[in-house]
């Protein structure tokens, strides 16, 4: 099978589309898609959020600045997008409040697209979070931010191979200069509308004992929740004793997370806040 078309390719640079982008600030009551911004602390999520929405969230060169969840919106090609700036976290597996907020939003909030903002100069550490998010949701776009910094440190990232490895679009960007933002918007649009079908990377290196336990549980989960897109991740959480996930299994809430295949979601306007 051929891999997805490399999304890093610049022939699809939608520079001409940027005129379509209207910054809606927070004044939006109707939106078609919800987009979450996740990522490590200090990777430029808030900067990106500001440049997408025209708002002015506090940004600062400190890990741990964004503490409350900020929301805003933008419109592109006739669809309204609601954007949620999640607190920056290194992981989604520990149990701090920040991680819970981010995790719950990505899992239960069911954003149509999750943009994972990645610091290109600390790729390895950021990929740890990317892998975790991709276990939860395949509807993701990786924004390879701080490319200007990476260039200054003479680092080159082969974004096409990265996209191939991760199975989701990768967009290089420098949010502060606005570089790559139009293309990111276009990719968000494509993933949201099903123009791009993701095949998210799954964790491969677990030790055999863990693998065995996970596949046993996935089987059982399959019986209780057919078509659950992230059964493996749910199984891992159950093995770690995540009370919130156990509750979602017990109450059957998890069944609500089984969604129509990507792209089938037609752009029907939803009312009110999510």
């Amino acid at each position, binding site marked *: 099978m051929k891999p997805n078309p490399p999304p890093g390719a610049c022939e699809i640079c939608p520079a001409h589309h940027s005129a379509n982008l209207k910054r809606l600030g927070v004044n939006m009551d109707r939106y078609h898609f919800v987009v979450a911004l996740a990522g490590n602390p200090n990777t430029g999520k808030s900067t990106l959020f500001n440049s997408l929405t025209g708002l002015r969230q506090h940004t600062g060169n400190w890990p741990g600045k964004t503490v409350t969840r900020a929301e805003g919106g933008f419109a592109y090609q006739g669809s309204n997008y609601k954007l949620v700036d999640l607190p920056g976290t*290194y*992981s989604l597996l*520990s149990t701090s409040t920040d991680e819970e907020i981010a995790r719950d939003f990505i899992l239960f909030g069911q954003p149509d697209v999750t943009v994972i903002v990645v610091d290109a100069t*600390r790729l390895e*550490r950021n990929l*740890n979070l990317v892998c975790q998010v991709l276990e939860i949701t395949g509807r993701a776009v990786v924004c390879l931010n701080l490319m200007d910094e990476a260039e200054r440190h003479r680092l080159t990232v082969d974004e096409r191979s990265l996209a191939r490895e991760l199975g989701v679009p990768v967009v290089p960007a420098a949010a502060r200069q606005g570089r790559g933002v139009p293309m990111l918007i276009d990719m968000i649009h494509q993933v949201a509308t099903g123009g791009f079908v993701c095949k998210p990377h799954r964790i491969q290196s677990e030790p055999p004992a863990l693998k065995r336990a996970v596949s046993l549980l996935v089987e059982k989960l399959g019986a209780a929740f057919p078509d659950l897109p992230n059964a493996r991740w749910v199984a891992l959480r159950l093995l*770690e*004793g995540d009370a919130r996930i156990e509750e979602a299994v017990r109450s059957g809430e998890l069944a609500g997370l089984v969604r129509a295949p990507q792209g089938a979601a037609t752009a029907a306007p939803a009312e009110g806040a999510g």
Partner: protein
Amino acid sequence: MNELTGPLLAVLAALAIYFLFRPGRGWLERWRRRLRLSDRVLSEDALKHLYHCEYEQRVATVQSLSGALGTPVEKVAGLVQRIEAGELATSEGASLRLTPKGREYALRIIRAHRLWERYLSEETGLKEPDWHKRAEQQEHRLTSSEADALAARMGNPPFDPHGDPIPTQRGQLPPRRGQPLTSLAVGERARIAHLEDEPEAVYAQLVAEGLHPLMAVQLTHVSAERICFRAEGEEHVLAPIVAANVAVVPLPREQPVEESLETLAVLEPGQEATVVGLSPNCRGLERRRLMDLGLLPGTVVAAEMRSPVGDPTAFRIRGALIALRGEQAANIRIGSRRQVA
């Protein structure tokens, strides 16, 4: 100042009365409750002892009970009578056995104890020596619904910080894991699953050796008098009778042997090394944080600079510059050091 003395005394007296007789939490009330509690505490501790004996397939007697509780035999006899009257245990000749009701009771106490230790180790800043002491008291205070709530909040942890399983809400425990250290052959590698905490003298010796659950060990020498093994780069020698109190789970052979004694704390700016492991002393929030940052076995870490006052030190970890304090760095074992090119 004389006109102040009167009112001052009145206020003091009022305060004293308040603290003595405060409903529910007054000192008087607490003291009375403690008296009542001590009887219950003793019988609950006795049930725990009976359960441990059963789990380890030893025979419990009035003598062993008296030893475990540190109470004279005469007093224990009365205690045993009370327990039997409550249909929590029965005696057959010299040996004491739990009834199903007694077993359930004992498991509830053990659950509360291990949960509390787990809670203290993971979610508070208290250090290892405090856990057991505090859990010994808390186990008698936690009601089972409180214990359940605590467990749910912590994600129903299956193990306590010593590697012992925590009974489930329904009182289930897995079969004992591991085999005695004495059963390994020379060269074989294993992970410590459990340290037997009775008899106390033997347990103290194991702790003094610095052994703890999850530690990887490799046998280097076995004879009738002693058993030698390496663990975390250190050589340990135990008498077989002591080593028999260490339960281990064998590890696959191909895993590399952790040979190093050094920790990140000795890394000088300009040097780098590969992480071999995180000490089990680093736990809870701190352990998760360090692992989130990418400090894991196999990670290459370079020391970059030291604070002008000598501590902390900033390390390059997977591209990011992270400052760690000396005592944190001392919990991270590394392989051989080398100069950064």
